[in-house]
């Protein structure tokens, strides 16, 4: 893929990130951070390719499998802990 095309995506995504995240209230900054951890686990798609398509020797098998495990840890751990925190935020019931 063209480098310039990837840089285009980069620039627009950074802009999108700033626009979206500056609207999150400080109240939710901790869940925001664990959510960021969870989506950062998107590296799992790279890890899947490493473990499933390129794992040919002991080193690549180790690296690929570990990468899948670490990224899955982020995805599952991140989303579940975010859900757990968000569930606790309640409005006053009167």
């Amino acid at each position, binding site marked *: 893929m063209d480098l310039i095309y990837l840089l285009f995506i980069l620039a627009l995504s950074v802009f999108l990130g700033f626009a979206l995240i500056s609207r999150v*209230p400080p109240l939710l900054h901790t869940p925001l*951070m664990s959510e960021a951890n969870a989506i950062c686990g998107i590296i799992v798609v790279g890890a899947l390719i490493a473990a499933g398509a390129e794992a040919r020797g002991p080193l690549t098998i180790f690296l690929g499998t570990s990468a899948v495990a*670490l990224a899955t840890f982020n995805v599952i751990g991140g989303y579940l802990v975010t859900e757990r925190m968000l569930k606790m935020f309640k409005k006053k019931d009167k």
Partner: protein
Amino acid sequence: MSNEFFTNLIYIVSSVLFAFGLKFLGSPVTARRGNMLSASGMLLAVLATLFNGHIISFQWILIGFIIGGSLGALVAFKAAMTQMPEMIALLHGCGAMASVFVDWTAYHVHGATDLTNAITLYLSIVIGGLTVTGSGIAWGKLSEKIPGKPILFTGQKWLNTAIISAIVILGIMFIINPARYDLFLIILGLSMFFGIFMVIPIGGADMPVVISVLNSYSGVVACTTGFVIHNTLLIVVGSLVGANGIILSIIMCKAMNRSIGNVIFGAFGSVIKKTGTDEKKEAKAMSVEDAFLILENAKSVVIIPGYGMAVAQAQHAVRELSEFLEKNGCDVKYAIHPVAGRMPGHMNVLLAEANIPYDQLLEMDAINPLMDSVDVAIVIGANDVVNPASRHDKSSPIYGMPIINADKAKTVFVLKRSMATGFAGIENDLFYYDNCRMIFGDAKQTIQALVAEFKSSQH
């Protein structure tokens, strides 16, 4: 080819779902829906990658899924809310390590295919390497496996300079000749080494900044890995997370009136200057019984929690007290300073866990204009964030830092173990104000005693 096209289409859908997920985090009402959307985006991306035809063997993937998934679920359910900062630090480290492993696999199998590839590989392993160990140290400090105090030694600056120079010089050599596997490994090793030295001199109260910076790095690494393996989704998500970390770092630094450079390289905690106030000042102590009498007649109370409240695990007792106050016709609010706690938003999560409705939690800028009309401000385990010296004492190290104006309330109670100084090592002028009363002792016990007074008065 059509497979590739289809996968990329799904990646676009995933990106949109992630963006909506973050958008919905803009309000506590929609936040859970946002988390669900984001998770479904992740599921789509994983499925699209698994079945796009590139993947030929599934057994290692399955093993990775089982190990990572079960550990992730275990940690997510077991972690107490007070442990959230260290959990987040751990997740930063794992994400960065996964990225580094993906880079390494790509390099091991294909080598560096062109100049861009060599440069992005280099950036990726440097930032990834230091994020892995930096997060590890942050995790150790937050979980108190390593002393939280800044660790300093002579020659630290020289050592750091030497490591950075080595990383830069070896990096140039690597980019010129990317076939040098040895350089790849040395650069990765040095970066990991540097991550350790980057975080050990930083003290506990600066952790909100460190966590935010590491968050940003973990996003940047995902992004550079996206460039290495030509994956658009990684670039999009990496940028979102990177932007997140940068915004939070800026907010934290503003709240401490310091620059990021000052936090990372300043080792603030080590420079304890005695601000030469030798005049005898006396703080006035007060008993729980007298405090109760004042609270009983208060019409409005603002509670200002700090990290000390989390340490004393006092949040549930605090809720009980505020329930009694409200039954008594008193208006109770909580004032949250942006850097209270060990990570952004830490206090809000702890108070939410204790079932305190979030509409009672007010940000610093929202509560300060109201402080004049408040009868009692109760400071629990906070110190520097209520020090009025930051407004008028130009010689104070925290001069200029935005604070919660607790001193403007008619009466201020400070719940504290002793007269010891806060993290910044400076005297708190507030304690000597005429309207301030110290209630010494463990915060949790003090509040429980106040609750007991309310209980007995109702019979």
